[in-house]
């Protein structure tokens, strides 16, 4: 099953089981079914609760906040993650704050879905990975879809936690297949050493030369790099993909990281203040003295994301960048 279909099913089942759940976004109703077709078919089944909205990113996240506040569950699609910038105030200063700023816990089951990432030539304002800008907002959680995590379990779990969440969805991932039954390919397997943390490994999960941590959108590139590291460089690298990026369940990752002594983080974000910085600090504090080198951050360049394919490739994180960085770091 393709990731987009899994996500579509997950949304459908939330709407089905929960008569108080709403889904809002620009152009999400049928026959269009959303810019990336994630919501296809849903408005036909739930015409009152799947609503196409005007172009008002700030406004519709506010509406989602209001629905959540009043006792509904709300899922809001931002057409391109870049435009979540327009909803920054509603997310940070309303929905997230409301959870605690009134002196008592207020349930706020609001999920803002953000199709993110580049690689499709959509240009500087339609290709970003803005995860990092939302780290460290009290009350706000960040998630990212992956080909390992079943959204039919993840989405209801996020809503049950009843705190506002951003769900990042890599656009290129939509068309990929979900992995099932522990098998990635002929060489690689996966399991879940902790709830919501997927691990990709070669043969035995307990041995490796290094660990690579990546959000779901980087899965393909990370898996490609793990394969090449093994086949071309005889480096065994384990890959960890947490569904929740922030707060990061670091305790769950430590047993895996502990053995390795060498940790990398790969993400598509452009340079500076990235999610990897948050991961690195947690790892440095927890494993100081056991690490052979500082956690190495691998990410896109410090640059806007250009449109032309050949230029975009120079800026965005590539499989080869991951591979090369790991090899060079381990060699030093």
């Amino acid at each position, binding site marked *: 099953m393709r990731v987009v279909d899994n996500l579509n099913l997950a949304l459908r089942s939330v709407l089905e089981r929960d008569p108080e759940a709403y889904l809002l976004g620009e152009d999400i109703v049928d026959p269009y079914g959303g810019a990336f077709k994630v919501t296809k078919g849903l408005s036909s089944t739930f015409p009152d609760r799947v609503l196409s909205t005007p172009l*008002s990113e700030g406004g519709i996240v506010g509406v989602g906040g*209001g629905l959540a506040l009043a006792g509904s569950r*709300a899922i809001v699609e931002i057409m391109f993650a870049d435009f979540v910038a327009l909803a920054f105030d509603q997310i940070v200063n309303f929905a997230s704050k409301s959870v605690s700023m*009134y002196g*008592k816990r207020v349930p706020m089951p609001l999920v803002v879905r953000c199709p993110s990432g580049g690689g499709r030539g959509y240009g500087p304002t339609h290709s970003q990975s803005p995860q990092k800008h939302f780290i460290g907002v009290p009350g706000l959680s960040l998630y990212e879809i992956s080909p390992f995590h079943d959204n039919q379990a993840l989405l209801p779990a996020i809503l049950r936690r009843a705190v506002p969440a951003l769900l990042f969805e890599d656009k290129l991932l939509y068309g990929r297949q979900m992995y099932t039954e522990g098998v990635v390919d002929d060489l690689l397997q996966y399991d879940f050493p902790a709830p919501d943390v997927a691990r990709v490994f070669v043969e035995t999960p307990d041995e490796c030369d290094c660990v690579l941590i990546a959000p779901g959108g980087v899965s393909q590139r990370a898996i490609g790099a793990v394969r090449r590291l093994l086949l071309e460089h005889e480096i065994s690298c384990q890959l960890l993909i947490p569904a929740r990026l922030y707060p990061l369940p670091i305790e769950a990752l430590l047993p895996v990281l502990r053995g390795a002594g060498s940790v990398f983080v790969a993400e598509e974000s452009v340079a500076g203040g990235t999610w990897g910085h948050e991961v690195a600090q947690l790892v440095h504090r927890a494993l100081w003295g056991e690490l052979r080198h500082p956690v190495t951050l691998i990410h896109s360049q410090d640059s806007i994301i250009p449109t032309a394919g050949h230029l975009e490739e120079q800026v965005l994180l590539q499989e080869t960048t991951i591979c090369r960085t790991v090899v060079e770091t381990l060699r030093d």
Partner: protein
Amino acid sequence: MTSAVATADRAKERTPLTDEDLLLLLMIRRFEEELLRLFGAGLLNGTTHTCLGQEYVPVALRTLIGLEDFVFSNHRGHGHYLARYQDLRGLLAEIMGREGAVCNGVGGSQHILRDRYLSTGVQGQSLPVAVGVALRLKHAEPGRLVCAHIGDGTWGEGSVYEALNMAALWRLPLLVVVEHNGIAQSTPTTAQMAGTIADRVKAFGIDHHRTESTDIGEIRAELDPMIQRSREASLPLVVEFATHRVGPHSKGDDTRPPDVIERAEAHDWHRSYATAFPERFAHADERARSLVEEVVAEVQDLPPAVWTEQ
């Protein structure tokens, strides 16, 4: 001058009001004055925005808006809260950060949540949220509505228009109450607003009503049928109160020229009711004063608020 005279004239024709309403009006007035005094005496921390001059707005609305309706308030929200809950103690404790504070001292003057009442400190943010609540009410509790208070200056924020558009498109029971006091912090409306609120509202196909009255009975009579209709037909409505800020924006920051302040005071409901019903007024005022003083004395002695649910 002329307008001051006109107001005085009209005062005599005030429609009668209940003791409860009169007491409430004066309680809010005394509460706000007391806050400014406490600030002046260095007994309060942070900031506050009193509703001096605008107390009658929530008092007039309180019989039209029930506890099952949602109310969104803003920075100038003490009157909104007190008109709904008559809870001097909870609010003062909140502002002073003492035990019994309605939000455990966490929110303070500008950030209050109690049941279906909520205020926030970011102008314009509440309207889209109110739209979301109204969307739910329309489906889950038809007949109920969301009442959101905003000032004239808040019409500078784009979120207001995003919200109006959705409220109209989706036919939602949203009542926006605009307290148009002619000023935003220090900036007169003429310097921050082009055109009129009436036209901006109508441009979205939303009904607009403006009232110049400060007479509780008159306002209720005017608004009742409109608010009923908004509930029954599930339609947005904007009611604009031509009102007057009698006090400073927050504290000690009134840079308006004396004649402008005088004009505001001439429109104060306080004078009109004092003239119209001198005895009842004096009696209620006495009572309001002592109620507020009691609460101040009591709250000042309470231990600090405790916040457990972080």
